[in-house]
């Protein structure tokens, strides 16, 4: 029964991933990324992580991808790549190393695999994650707030026009 959901989701995720990497236009990459994110949200549901799945759709798909699209539109035509590749042997070398990496990773993953036990009552619900966040992870949770603040300040400073520069 689960296979019926998993196989399309996995296939979509893989296809989206390939799309991200090979698309000529950044916009197409962004769309492909969106596909991956939604497909992964589906697999999260299969893994009893309803809350995470919801976050995935809201934050990733809703906020981050939109931010990407904004920037792509801001930079419009020149958001792509320059005409002349400077490292001609990089793709081949990268493919070889990546293949080796995948092989090693699959061996490691096979080693780590174990059958799923039945999930406990209420596993992955917002209530449980919230309880964990405000009990054992209180300090990291507060730090996360600070990191967000720092990110905002950084973005504001970086985005500011240098002094004296004319509005274009």
């Amino acid at each position, binding site marked *: 029964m689960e296979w019926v959901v998993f196989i399309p989701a996995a296939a979509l995720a*893989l296809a989206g991933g390939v799309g991200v*990497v090979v698309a000529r236009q950044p916009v197409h990459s962004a769309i492909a990324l969106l596909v991956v994110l939604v497909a992964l949200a589906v697999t999260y549901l299969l*893994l009893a992580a309803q809350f995470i799945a919801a976050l995935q759709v809201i934050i990733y798909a809703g906020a981050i991808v939109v931010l990407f699209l904004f920037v792509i539109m801001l930079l419009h035509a*020149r958001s792509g790549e320059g005409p002349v590749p400077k490292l001609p042997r990089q793709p081949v070398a990268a*493919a070889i190393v990546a293949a080796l990496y995948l092989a090693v990773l*699959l061996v490691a*993953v096979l080693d780590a695999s174990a059958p799923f036990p039945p999930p406990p009552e209420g596993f*992955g619900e917002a209530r449980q994650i919230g309880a964990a966040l405000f009990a054992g992870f209180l300090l990291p949770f507060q730090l*996360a707030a600070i990191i967000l603040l720092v990110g905002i300040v950084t973005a504001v400073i970086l985005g500011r026009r240098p002094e004296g520069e004319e509005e274009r």
Partner: protein
Amino acid sequence: MVPSFAYLALSAALFTLGAMGVLVRRSALIIFMSVELMLNSVNLAFVTFARMHQSIEGQVVVFFVLVVTAVEVVVGLALIVDIFRSRESVDVDDVDLLRG
């Protein structure tokens, strides 16, 4: 019942795809999206392990990854815009001031 290996293999494949993207593409934006891909594959692994070990901490970590990712995207995109302003390009090979 889908075995855990299927999820983990999917995660590994996505991670490798993302790495390929980082290594091969020259557009800073696409490299960035490839990084997002890698982060998501790791999230998938975390969620899988949380289910496998019946421990909610795996999902909590995913929550934190989400937070960090959000910040990283904001800062990273700001940097890209800044670089674009000074160089009229987002090709990472144009940015080689570290050349020895």
